[in-house]
């Protein structure tokens, strides 16, 4: 019996609350995207449609860079697919913890799975419900879309120094999500550290693209963990 399924389910209100830090983190990055899209001579509608329909930060920045260097759109789409393979693992991980059997809203929930919404949802104690996930994702999404519009229309409203320091905001959020989990169980710290080291080593080896390194690091570390540790051991350590 896992701890997740015994804890009470999370509500939509929890989603808005825990999604707020993502909104704040997305906003300045989306402003930068809007600005960059404008400087790449995209129309307002074109720039906004990236954020509205694609909703994937790293892919959108990559697409702009490749567009500027004149790369064919087929190649940009393939590069995007490779970069987003990690979401296969994240969605699968969410699916394993999802409560309730109402499948009607799953296509909407799927649209909002990003590194950040996943990281926040997956580190919650309570049961993951569809209302919680939708509220979390809508909050994050609103920051991304509105930031893109603000960046395009108003431009650099944030001073460069502020913009630069906000650049660590989402990473700081990842750290702040991970640390309390590591406090609970040493095995969690080992999993995270292991994945980070594998990712760093793969980066130095420079054999694959960054997107593949991330997927490989997540896979290898989680496989090793699953092979060498039983779930109940981790739960005991947590208790």
């Amino acid at each position, binding site marked *: 019996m896992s701890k997740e399924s015994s804890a009470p389910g999370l509500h939509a209100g929890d989603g808005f609350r825990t999604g707020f830090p993502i909104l704040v983190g997305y906003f300045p990055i989306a402003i930068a995207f809007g600005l960059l899209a404008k400087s790449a001579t995209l129309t307002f509608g074109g720039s906004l449609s990236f954020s509205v329909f694609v909703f994937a930060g790293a892919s959108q920045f990559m697409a702009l860079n490749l567009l500027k260097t004149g790369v064919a759109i087929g190649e940009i789409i393939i590069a995007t697919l490779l970069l987003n393979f990690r*979401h296969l693992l994240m969605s699968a991980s969410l699916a*394993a913890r999802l409560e309730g059997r109402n499948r009607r809203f799953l296509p909407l929930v799927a649209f909002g799975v990003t590194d950040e919404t996943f990281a926040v949802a997956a580190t919650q104690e309570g049961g993951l419900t569809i209302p919680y996930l939708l509220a979390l994702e809508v909050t994050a999404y609103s920051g991304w879309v509105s930031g893109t519009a603000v960046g395009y229309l108003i431009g650099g409203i944030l001073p460069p120094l502020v913009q630069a320091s906000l650049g660590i905001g989402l990473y700081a959020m990842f*750290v702040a999500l991970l640390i309390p989990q590591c406090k609970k169980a040493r095995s969690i710290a080992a999993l995270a550290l292991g994945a980070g080291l594998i990712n760093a080593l793969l980066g130095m080896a420079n054999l694959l693209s960054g997107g593949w390194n991330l997927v490989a690091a997540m896979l290898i570390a989680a496989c090793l963990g699953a092979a060498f540790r039983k779930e109940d051991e981790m739960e005991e350590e947590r208790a």
Partner: protein
Amino acid sequence: MKLFLLVAGMTAVTYLPRLIPLLSLSDRKLPPFVRRFLLYIPYTALGALIIPGAFQAIPGHPLAASLGLAASGLCAWLGGGLIPAVASGVGVAFLMLWLQVG
């Protein structure tokens, strides 16, 4: 037209990896190894997202980024919530950049 095709294609290849596992796994009983593997993914994902990317989060200022992250980590360790932890990290990074150290 070209931009429309690009956005449509990127939407498809971004959406499908998010959708397929949710639709195919969400009402299935998984073997214990796969279940453990999927429950460990959040921690390995966080580790790989943080290392090494976080240290390059502020281009040209790895020290400011590192100290900011350390401040966030310390705040989270001491039991501060998510927002205080992020705010202290951004604050320390801002201070470092403003004072032109790191």
